[in-house]
């Protein structure tokens, strides 16, 4: 089975899931014109298996990851729990997003599965290098100017053995 991802559907699913889950509203942007607003990027990767295999990645700057955690938890971003939860939030949002995507990509009785998300910190240069092989990549910006990327990589893309925390 060939695995062709519709860019529009991918964008709609990412946008809807981020809105419903973390209350962030995004639109696609020209990635070259948008800074991460942070030195370090938190990137979550999850492998999936089914009629086609691959890897979903979701990435956000460290500061924005704290906001994502705060939104998930319904607390102020200055709260210590939010500060501790940035890495976890990026991983869980990737996990939730992949679940929604797989249900759409592999509907009905299809057997499929997904692994546990692995989150790591990367400098912007290393992140861009790792993202180079993406089958599909969205650079998104929130209504408050924060950047978040979502991409699908082919089977065999590197997924670290465990989170680097």
């Amino acid at each position, binding site marked *: 089975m060939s695995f062709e991802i519709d860019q529009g559907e991918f964008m709609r699913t990412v946008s809807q*899931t981020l809105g*419903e*889950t973390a209350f962030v509203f995004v639109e696609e942007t020209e990635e070259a014109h948008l800074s991460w607003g942070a030195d370090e990027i938190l990137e979550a990767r999850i492998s999936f298996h089914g009629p086609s295999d691959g890897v979903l990645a979701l990435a956000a700057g460290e500061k924005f990851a704290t906001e994502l*955690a705060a939104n*998930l*938890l*319904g607390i102020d971003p200055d709260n210590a*729990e939010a500060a*501790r*939860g940035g890495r*976890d*939030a990026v*991983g*869980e949002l990737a*996990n*939730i997003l*992949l*679940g*929604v995507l*797989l*249900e759409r990509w*592999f509907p*009905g*009785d*299809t*057997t*499929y*599965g*997904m*692994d*546990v998300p692995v989150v790591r910190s990367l400098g912007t240069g290393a992140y861009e290098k790792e993202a180079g092989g993406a089958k599909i990549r969205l650079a998104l910006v929130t209504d408050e100017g924060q950047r978040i990327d979502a991409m699908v990589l082919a089977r065999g893309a590197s997924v670290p053995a465990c989170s680097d925390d």
Partner: protein
Amino acid sequence: MSYSILIVDDSATIRSVIKRSIGMTGIDVGAVHEAANGLEALEVLGREWVDIVFADLNMPEMNGVELVERMFEDSMLVSTPVVIVSSDHNQRTIDGLKERGIRAYIKKPFRPENFRDVVGEVLGLKKE
């Protein structure tokens, strides 16, 4: 009567969100226990009384399917209600777990009212 609950998820953030959601159901929650995987959950279940378990599926060390299997093999735990809370939307997975005896399946992303409906039904609480 207050109910003792166990939340099993490798994400501390999601455990907090689930705890908050259950708190919004209006049920009288007593002790709230947490575990980051199935192995930790079994340790808690071995030493604490738990009225209902909310468990994720995709977790390191021991996943939710193995946790359910281990619980249902244990005569002391087989009657403890298990609700799966997972981002795995695979219908085969859901059907298989329901055949094994889980009481409900909540898909992530969820809303607090999903817990209200499920908790009331699983614990046999009358709707007011």
